[in-house]
């Protein structure tokens, strides 16, 4: 099944968050204390590479630029508001009106928007 670029980006973002967690010694220690072995942490790089290869180059570049600027280059849009900058998204947004898997950037902060509802 062909996946939308937005879904791939969301997946990439999830993997990057997981990678960040795995690089945080204190968090890893917490997981291990709870009883979760993390003996194959390096597998995360492989997963990130797999997803990155499927992404449109320009889009990935833009994502990387945003990631340099923000902790969260992607932001959910809820009730028409970007939860990255808390400014309302434009009323003509297809993402909002049609709930499509399309790439839209926040007009105000530039983050890539997604919906969870």
């Amino acid at each position: 099944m062909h996946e939308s670029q937005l879904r791939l980006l969301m997946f990439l973002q999830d993997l990057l968050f997981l990678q960040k967690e795995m690089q945080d010694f204190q968090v890893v220690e917490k997981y291990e204390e709870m009883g979760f072995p993390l003996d194959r942490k390096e597998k995360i790089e492989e997963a990130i590479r797999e997803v990155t290869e499927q992404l449109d180059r320009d889009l990935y570049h833009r994502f990387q630029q945003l990631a340099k600027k923000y902790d969260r280059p992607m932001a959910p849009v809820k009730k028409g508001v970007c939860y990255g900058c808390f400014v309302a998204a434009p009323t003509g947004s297809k993402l909002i009106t049609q709930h499509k898997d399309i790439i839209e950037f926040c007009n105000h902060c530039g983050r890539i928007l997604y919906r969870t509802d």
Partner: protein
Amino acid sequence: MELKELFNASNVNLDLEAQGKDEVLLELINLLHLDEKAKEMLFKMLKKRENLGSTGIGKGFAIPHCRSLVVDKLNVAFARQRQGIDFNSIDDKPAHYFFLIVAPPVEISNYYLPVLGKVAQFCKISDITSRLDKLTKVEDFLKLLADSGS
């Protein structure tokens, strides 16, 4: 946040029919009542998480967990599978009891790790598996959580 506040009839299944690890993950995800695309993404993410090290913590318990953009709040589920599933657990024993924990990457209340910790503690209670085996109704499970102080 107490565990008993997070579970209810819609996210507990005491008679899981799944026969393999993937099926278990899919059935657990179903208990979160997300849309199809969110389910697919969550399944992929949980699989990637399992690749880093199994969440089968032994004694028949597995606690698959991850953070994902597809949810906007902490989501949990519990399921029991009588026959047992090979979940690559640390003690190589089949898993019967499954907790699923999913949270967004950023939560204002930051419940994810504390809840994961509470679930892991709950699984360590000495006679917990025999008590879980005896459950017949979801209400019994909720009562067990409450009685155990979870």
